[in-house]
Structure formats: C-alpha cells, structure tokens
C-alpha cells in the first residue's frame, strides 16, 4: 500500500537580505547600466537547526569568492535583472524555467555536478529594480523535473535507529572535514564512511556505475535544510542518480537526510526509503517546475520595498 505513496519534498523559501538589493542596485547603476546580462550569483542554505527549507541571499551572493562554512552550503543560479516593468511582466517564464532545467541536465551529464555537487541546488531569479522608489520586483524559481516522480518504499527512521552512537560520532567528524561543496551531496556506506560522488559515479560510462554496489547497505546522503520532510535539494540529487546510474532505475534506495543541531548533534537526521521509477530509455525530462509562490500562495512575483533602509530621506528620519 505504502508503495504507491508519492514521495514529497519541501520547497525552498527565499529570504533576501536588504544588502542583496543594495548591491544589485549599485551594480545596475555603475556596471551594467542598460545592459541586461545574465549574472551568476549564489545563495546559501544551512542544515544547522534548519527550519522551513530557507535559502538566503545577501550581498555576498555577488562575490567572486564564496565563503562557506561547515553548515553553510552554496546554491548556484542565474540572475536576470530586466530594465523595465513591462519586460519583467511579459517575459516568458515557462521558457526561462525550461532553459534552466535543460542547463541542469547538461551539467549533470557532463560531470559538472559530480565535481561540484552544489550545482544541483540551482535557482533562477528574475527581477526588476525601480530605483526611484526603492522597489524591487522579483521572482525566484527552483528548477526541478516535474516528470520524475519517486515513491515511498517504507516509513522513515531516525539515524539512531540504524547506526551506533560510535558510527554517528565518527560520521560527524568526517562530514566536518569535507569541503561543503562535497558535504552537500555524498554517499555513505553501512559504517557511515564517506564516499564522494565523483569517486563513486562516472559521467562517461554510466552503465557501469554502482554495479557492485549493495543498495541495501549504502546511503545517498545530502545536507537537508528542512526539518520534517526532505528539502527541495534532494529532488535534483535524485535526478542525477536517475540519469547517471541506470542500475538504480526501478530500485529502492536509502536516502540519509543529514540535519545538524547545536552541540554537534545529528539526532534529527533521518533515513528515507524511496523507490525510483523506470521509464523507457528514450524518456525525456521536458517539464520543469517551479516558480516560488508569493506569501498568499499565489503564482506571482513579490515586491521588496527597501526605502526604509536605502532611501537617504527616510533613513535620515530615523537617524534623527
């Protein structure tokens, strides 16, 4: 019965700090001016005391060097800042999302995502800056394949129900020593030894991937920004496994959602058991989801008014 239950993910919820808009406005005025160029930016998410699957953006999103730390993981995306409100309103959001989705597939197939698993946490940001009123119109999308549906194989378990305290303790040390690009998505064996994606999976000879791999005693791990059901980032990890490891199709696999708390505890971490589908060989992932809904659950963009913190006249009132 439980085999037919569709496995569900918690969507990312974007949190944009005022300094993100400040930097965007500064770049628009000083660098891009009237050009509409796609910019590569980054967001961050954490699996430490995580709640609500948040993804953060601030002025460091524009930096060339990204400072991550033990529990701060990078997400990679494209910013499309448009010049007019009309072009913001009229641009074809479906085709934008499809382009982003196809790019993700390309990055999986050419090995980029194995080398840098953070590429799996991908996003798209469409924006228009009304610099006179300090209004920023924006809309995030977090591309994921609508076609790839997986099923719950059996109920989830807490990490302590599957592993010894000793193994869990060592696991914490091993994750801490990894670069966060790698600790975002990786594999662990039955004693929780870490195996990097790039060491276990090849993008060239996919048919031989994980051939001698015991699926019941290995775990596909990811750092989870969500506290109950699995966070959105897992969805593209599953896509990677489906595309690069044909042997997994139609099989049940173990997912380990790594969640940390203060005092270095992993006790909120959970093991999920899921079954991957088996589509025909010529199956194409064509439909992509999803644009973020606004606070009222509607399919529309948001406005951030930054006059409180950016408009010299308004801020002067508060200085006084």
């Amino acid at each position, binding site marked *: 019965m439980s085999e037919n239950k569709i496995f569900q993910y918690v969507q990312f919820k974007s949190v944009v700090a005022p300094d993100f808009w400040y930097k965007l406005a500064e770049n628009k005025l000083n660098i891009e001016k009237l050009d509409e160029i796609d910019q590569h930016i980054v967001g961050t998410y954490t699996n430490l005391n995580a709640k609500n699957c948040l993804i953060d953006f601030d002025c460091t999103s524009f930096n060339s060097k990204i400072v991550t730390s033990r529990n701060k993981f990078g997400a990679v995306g494209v910013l499309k800042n448009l010049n007019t409100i009309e072009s913001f309103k009229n641009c074809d959001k479906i085709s934008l999302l499809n382009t982003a989705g196809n790019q993700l597939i390309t990055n999986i197939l050419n090995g980029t995502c194995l080398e840098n698993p953070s590429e799996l946490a991908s996003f798209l940001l469409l924006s228009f800056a009304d610099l006179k009123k300090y209004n920023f119109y924006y809309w995030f999308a977090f591309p994921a394949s609508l076609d790839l549906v997986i099923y719950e194989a059996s109920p989830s378990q807490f990490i302590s129900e599957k592993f010894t305290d000793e193994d869990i303790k060592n696991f914490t040390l091993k994750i801490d020593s990894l670069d966060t690009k790698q600790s975002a998505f990786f594999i662990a064996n039955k004693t929780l030894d870490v195996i990097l994606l790039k060491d276990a999976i090849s993008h060239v000879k996919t048919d031989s991937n994980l051939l001698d791999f015991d699926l019941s005693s290995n775990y596909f791990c990811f750092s989870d920004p969500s506290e109950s059901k699995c966070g959105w980032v897992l969805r593209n990890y599953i896509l990677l496994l489906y595309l690069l490891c044909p042997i997994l199709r139609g099989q049940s696999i173990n997912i380990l959602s790594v969640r940390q708390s203060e005092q270095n505890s992993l006790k909120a971490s959970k093991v999920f058991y899921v079954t991957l589908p088996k589509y025909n060989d010529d199956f194409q992932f064509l439909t992509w989801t999803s644009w973020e809904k606004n606070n009222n659950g*509607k399919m529309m963009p948001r406005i951030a008014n930054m006059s409180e913190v950016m408009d010299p006249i308004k801020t002067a009132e508060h200085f006084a």
Partner: protein
Amino acid sequence: MDMINKIKSTSLSMAEKLTPVLKESKFKENGRLTPEEFVAAGDHLVHMCRTWNWSNGDESKIKSYLPADKQYLVTKNVPCQRRCKDMEFSGIEKIVEETEGEDGWVTQEVDDENEINESVAEMTLESNKIDELREKETNTQDEEEEEALDMEDFEESGMLETIDPSVAIVQPTASKSADPNNEIDSVVHCRSYDLHIVYNKYYQTPHLFLIGYDENKKLLTVDEMFEDVSQDNAKKTVTFEQHPHLGPSMLAVHPCRHGDLMKKFIQIAEEGGNELSVYSYLIIFLKFVQSVIPTINYDFSQTIKTN
C-alpha cells in the same frame, strides 16, 4: 540625545578613517581589541557556536585591517517570538547596574518562560493602548491590500500553475488566534533577525548590527524593529546606522560603552580568581548585549565562569 547620536555617527565615520589601527593589546587595560584579537575571538565564537559564521561581505568594501574572508561575523534567521515592547508592560525587568545618567544598562530576565507567558496572558492593556494597536493593525492591512491591488496584474494565468504531486504542502504558520475575544494580545508574530558583529575601528570593540523580518520574511520597518529592543535602550544605546561592510542601514547597538563594560567583566572575573581570555570576548559580549535585545533568541552558548 537623538540629535547627539546623529552627529556622533556622522563624525565617527570620519574619525574612523583617521584613527590608527590598534596594534598592541589593550584588552586587560581598557577592554578593547586589536583587529587580530577580534579575529581570534571570532574564530573562537565560530568554533563554539556553529550558528555564527565569518562573512567576507561586499568585496568592494573590504577593510584592509581584517583578513579578506573574515570581515565580520553573521548569524541568520534567529527567531524572535515576543515583542520586547509588550513584555515591558508586565514589569519583569530589573536594573543590574547603578544607572549613571542616561547611559545605564537595563536588563531583563527572560529565563522563566512560564512566568512571562502567564504575565502576558494576564496583562490588561489600557484602553488607549488597545486603540493604538487596533489602529496599527488596520494600517498594515490597508497597506497590504494596496500592494495586492498593484500586484494583481502580475498574477500568471494557469500556464505556470501546474499541479506538482511531489510538493509537500506545508501549513502556513498560524499567526492569529481563532478566538475573536482574544484578538489583540494573542497575536504572535514570529519574527526573525540577522545579527552581524562588526569590528569598530574607532571604539576598538565589536559592534552589533541587526535587521529583522516578519513571519513571511518581509523586512520590518525601523519602528517595528525598535519594538524588539529593550525600551530603555531604544534610540539611546541602539541607533540606526549604515553598516560599514554592506551599505544599507541597520539597527546597531552603540559601542561607546562596550570597552568599559568589558573591563568591568574582567575585574569581576579577577576578583573571583579567574582570568578572562581575549578569546572569550565575543561570547561575553553577546551575553551583555542580550540585555538590549532580550527576546531575540540567539544565545546557545555555555555559561561563563566569573567566580
């Protein structure tokens, strides 16, 4: 006082440019820090409290006296469930230090949650306060409606609204009580704050900046943010200033007395036969600024031995 603050913060940004970087340790002498000591204390904080991280900030605003990837410390999405302003109706605060003119630090006890909840529940607001709150609520509603009208054009038709079976439905956090009789005092808005610890070159101490969001992660107004500051410190020790590494303005706990306070802590510790190391500076610092922002729940750290 407000006017003085205004002049102070403008002249300070000038003075900061002219002040030489502190080279020798003045920690024991006057509770101040060199940039190296700030970095060491920051490393210790990051090690002890995993929620704090170093940030490089805006790359075009890097301060040369600090390492490029350790410009300031940040912790994000810190929950703030109660309004400090409301708590103060119930009079559960006490003065820890003899007030010296206007600069005295006032602290609040938030240890006993039950007690607070009870007193909040029992709290009877004066009628003018209720009117004030009601009025405010209506105003925000109006604003939201206005915004919704503006945005309606932007709503996308069915095209984007595909049904995705793999999306977990997350219940939106209820912000209002269903009981209509209770509508005013049971409104609980879980806000969240980002906190930044910046090195203030002029005062040679840490400088705390904060910025808050409502339950939908929408930026709060400055007045709303002041509701989460101990009312005796609002607009005195806490001001609204431009963040030196970022650009936009944020609330800031004025650092003018941090050095003296820290010196006092060192003395208390010494009297108790303990020596405070410069590494624990920021952990102690966070303890004492907690009295200014008592409802922002960032402190998971251990207790500090002073005796």
